[in-house]
């Protein structure tokens, strides 16, 4: 859900550095696994279902993380910690797209290249 808005917000963080494309969950997860894309971002009501379900199966649960969900408030510190831990697939609740995506993409850009 909200794929176009996620891509739009990601590009807005740094139009020169960020290339964001919308794909089906399966295509996007395979692209990350094959090295054709760096990261996967998905959204749904729980932040873990449609957002992460397919990525979880393709990339493995160690590579993905749920950043927000219904009934919770997004935490910027947790977002940055998830990025620092080397995760490559990110799931969030659709109502939190506007708040989380800029923080997430900025953290990904600021991450040292060789930090996993």
């Amino acid at each position: 859900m909200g794929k176009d808005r996620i891509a739009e917000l990601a590009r807005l963080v740094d139009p020169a550095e960020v290339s964001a494309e919308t794909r089906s969950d399966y295509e996007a997860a395979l692209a990350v696994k094959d090295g054709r894309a760096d990261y996967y971002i998905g959204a749904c009501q729980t932040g873990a279902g449609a957002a992460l379900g397919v990525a979880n199966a393709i990339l493995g649960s160690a590579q993905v993380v749920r950043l927000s969900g219904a009934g919770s408030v997004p935490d910027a510190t947790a977002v940055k910690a998830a990025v620092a831990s080397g995760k490559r697939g990110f799931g969030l609740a659709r109502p939190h797209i506007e708040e989380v995506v800029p923080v997430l993409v900025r953290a990904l850009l600021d991450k040292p290249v060789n930090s996993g």
Partner: protein
Amino acid sequence: MNALLHSEWAKALTLGLLGLLSTVAAHRTVAVYHDGLRTSVPELWLGEKTRSELGRYAYTISIGYILAYALPFPLASGVMLISVICLGADVIGIRMNSVLASAMVGFAFAVAVTAATDLFIHGVRQLPTPPGDLSLLWRPVLYGFPFLAALAAGYQHGTRWGVMATAGTAAVWAAFRVVLGHVGHTADPTLTAGLWALAVVGAVLLVIAFREVAESPPGTEFFEDKIRRIRRKGLILVPLAAVISLAASQGWLAGAPLQVAGIATDHRDAALAVALVSLVGFFPTQGMTGLVSGVWNQDGYPDWLLGAGYATANPAIAACGGAVLMMVELLSLTWVGKVMTRRPGVVSLGLATRDSMDTLAAVGFLAGGVIAAFATAGAAGAGAIVVAHTVNENHGRRITPTALPVVAYLGVAVVAGLARRAGWR
């Protein structure tokens, strides 16, 4: 017999049976409701996670959804959302070690949550100022249904397509309304005409979506052993489907808030239309997570099993219809895998449909909440909905925008009733 079937006991026992079967399905890793949990289940088979760890994960990703999205709708309508029961069944079934114990707890959980919601509604109705015309809460979203396909066209293809589809919907709606005015015998010809318009525009979008073919689609070999595993579990899945359709036929169970609006206002045709639109919206996610994991969903492709129930009030016909639809699912898994990988237009139409359903529900229920609160408690009631919405928006949307107006309206109804009891006017 008829009176027994329509009693609160029959409702609680039927939904209890749904809880029992869903829990057994989750325990045996045949089916789980949560798309995110479904693809984690193989970790249990591989020994990478224990039942305790996976049960904790299931609870973490489900509890917020149940409390901040799903539960307010049964509390306002008396129509249980299938996610409340099946997500609870996921947690119980995955966490518990004994299939017998998990079945008993699953049954008790479903009966308890059904009884608790019905008790809440009974309590609210006893207040000196009862909730008034509850249908006002649902009506704006109900009359927005017909534009679901047009909204999806806008999300999928852009503004120009959205405007064209909106104009097309309005034109077809008007044409059907004129025809029904002359020959129709429906209780609400305006809404019925709108649903026909939705069907026409939706069918056009589906045809366009199917015409888009992937240039170099990924292979489907990855799915083959998973498809065989799912098919072997038909003995659990088919009865589950029958119970779901039966419960829907009696107006006890719905699949999404938009369907609750249809059932709660006796517009079963609208609920059926939304169930079929949901099928387009959820088919890609449910189908793909099932095919990559080998674990299916108790509810099949959401929500055509429920749609079979909305289509008839006869419980036996509904149950047979649900069972047949689940068999169709099991037989068509290979075809579904090919659609998922070779028809990108269908997948993107599904995503656009989910976005449009979410947007329509959030805006429609906000409008309904304001109108219903005004009818119950005047301008102060309407203002309370606006304030609650604003506070939620400014504090991280802890409650989903779709459910917030319903929660706030319930609050207004209870406070207005208690104020009246205290002698305030």
